[in-house]
């Protein structure tokens, strides 16, 4: 069993508080991703779990036992560094087997274990090479091999894919998931890329400036973001946000954008939020372009069209607001055209002035 508990952890570097009271848990065998923009503290948090940084306040527990003061080499945790940190003067085989060699495991056993790991990671042909002679993807697999040969309870990954090019990244994402399914260690994975987070994680901790913005299952983050930060961070392309005023006391509550256009908000109890200013969020995939004679919520002018083949992104301007619309396939619009937009009501998110999502009622998970 390898459950990790982070309880009210704080970290100061001198006078600067970098981690401001973070709590979450990772269950045994889960693939947890810490995600957030640069400087949010995710790498620091990871290094605290590893034991390479001390904890200023709070507890880090492994299987219920407090490990704040346990040295890094005694925690049973392995780490894959962002730079891979492969020992340049050793071969691939020596790099992978290093931890066993340190414990004076007999050479024959080391060879066997290294061969097994190499087989798993498709490194068998490269065992005699030095890191300098390997490609980025190969080096990464060696770094992973070095970690898993120790059969650790927990494996930490510090932005392992950020040094790889795009196609390799996609490939390695699949590899990592496959490894996780086969070996089932508890994984804590740090990245700034929300696509990696969404595709690989069992649970995601979104960090912002040293605080947990939201901790949830990926789909929940997508469907019920708790703040505009999470709403715009998760999901690509990002959610449209429009500033405006809520009219809650009417029989038909509505949202009026700053620019004057209004959308009705049926089925919501918004009396408490009457006359408050806030934000309306709607994802590009929840807006459709409709014909002139169908019921439309809004009309606007096309500003930019981005054609990707399988889908098209249309930037539509209404007054000073711009909405991004995602359309399946290709569509015959050009900049300057006037188009009609229809909103999927179930896809509305309402955020109050503090940018917190106060409305979940129509966003039930299936």
């Amino acid at each position, binding site marked *: 069993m390898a459950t990790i508990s982070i309880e009210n952890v704080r970290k100061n570097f001198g006078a600067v508080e970098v981690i401001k009271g973070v709590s979450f848990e990772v269950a045994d065998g889960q693939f947890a991703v810490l995600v957030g923009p640069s400087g949010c503290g995710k790498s620091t948090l990871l290094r605290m779990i590893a034991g390479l940084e001390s904890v200023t306040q709070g507890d880090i527990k492994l299987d219920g036992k407090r490990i704040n003061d346990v040295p890094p080499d005694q925690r049973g*945790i392995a780490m894959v*560094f962002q730079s891979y940190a492969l020992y340049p003067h050793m071969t691939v085989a020596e790099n992978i087997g290093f931890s066993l060699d340190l414990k004076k495991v007999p050479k024959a056993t080391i060879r066997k274990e290294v061969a097994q790991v190499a087989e798993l990671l498709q490194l068998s042909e490269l065992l005699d090479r030095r890191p300098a002679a390997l490609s980025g993807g190969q080096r990464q697999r060696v770094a992973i091999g070095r970690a898993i040969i120790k059969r650790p309870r927990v494996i930490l990954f510090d932005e392992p894919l950020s040094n790889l090019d795009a196609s390799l990244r996609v490939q390695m994402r699949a590899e990592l998931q496959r490894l996780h399914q086969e070996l089932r260690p508890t994984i804590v994975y740090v990245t700034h890329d929300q696509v990696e987070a969404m595709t690989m994680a069992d649970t995601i901790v979104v960090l912002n400036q040293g605080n947990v913005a939201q901790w949830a299952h990926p789909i929940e983050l997508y469907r019920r973001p708790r703040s505009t930060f999470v709403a715009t961070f998760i999901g690509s392309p990002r959610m449209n946000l429009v500033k405006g005023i809520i009219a809650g006391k009417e029989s038909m509550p509505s949202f009026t954008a700053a620019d004057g256009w209004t959308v009705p908000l049926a089925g919501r109890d918004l009396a408490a939020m009457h006359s408050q200013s806030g934000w309306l969020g709607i994802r590009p995939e929840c807006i459709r372009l409709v014909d002139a004679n169908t019921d439309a919520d809004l009309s606007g002018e096309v500003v930019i069209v981005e054609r990707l083949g399988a889908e098209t992104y249309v930037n539509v301007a209404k007054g000073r607001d711009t909405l991004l619309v995602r359309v399946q396939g290709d569509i015959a619009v050009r900049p300057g055209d006037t188009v009609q937009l229809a909103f999927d009501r179930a896809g509305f998110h309402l955020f109050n002035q503090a940018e917190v999502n106060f409305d979940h009622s129509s966003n039930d998970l299936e």
Partner: protein
Amino acid sequence: MIGVRRFTQAEVSAYGFLSATLVFCLLPFLWVALASIDPNASQFLSFPKGITADHFIKIFTANNGGRWFFNSLITVGAATAVVVVVGGMGGYALSRTNAWWKRPFLYAIILVRILPPTALIVPLYKVMLIANGLMGALVRSVVPPDSTRSAMQIVGFVDGYLGLILVLSAMQLPLALWIIKTYFDLTPKDYEEAALMDGANSFQRIRRILVPLALPGLGAAGLLTFIGAWGDFLMPLTFISSAELQLLPIGLFRAFQRANTIDYGYLSALAVLYMLPAVVAFGFARRFLIQSFTGGIKG
């Protein structure tokens, strides 16, 4: 046309200047190179009428030359080893630490490198005298009387190997510390942390990861230390007086002072022998010269 001529003119003057400089730089060496193989060598430049290897052979068979060479090798070699180890440890610590004493220590190193050894030699001599007295007392209480002298030759601070080695090391240490610190500054901590996560204890980390990684830096420091200590004249001059312990630079110097018994051929051969290790080391160390001269100005 004018443009082409001007270009050629610049080239001509460059070649001319460089050739003149080359002659200027190499001319003094001509004498010593020729005299070392000239059976009738004199103080003055002349072309040998015959060639002999006698002078070189004599270094090792007579006249103390071999002794001086041996002493230099031992003391300078030991000093280099001391500096590489002590400087290696210290340079690493200076690079990795963020303690309050880091900046003062580094400023102190810069300061120490600026101080002329000639200004330090007087109080240093007194310090060494005192230390020598203490060591003498220790030796006399431990060692039988007839071995006292040989023991002091080894562990004495004045007129003893130990003192000279320590002094030579101290003189070269600041530069070595700076070079190694700069080197580690450019080496990411990742390797040590990975080794730590792999379960290596401090000793294993040092031996199997840090030392191999630091070899270029340690090599540079070692080479420059060797060159510096090998050429040091003031320290052996001040601290070594007995003939058996004398180092090469002083031996050469003193032999040269004996106006009526100078064998220039022998002395030239000795000078060539003295020169060679320094020149060879210099050849290897050329890449690091900038660092040694500026002390890694960029920190």
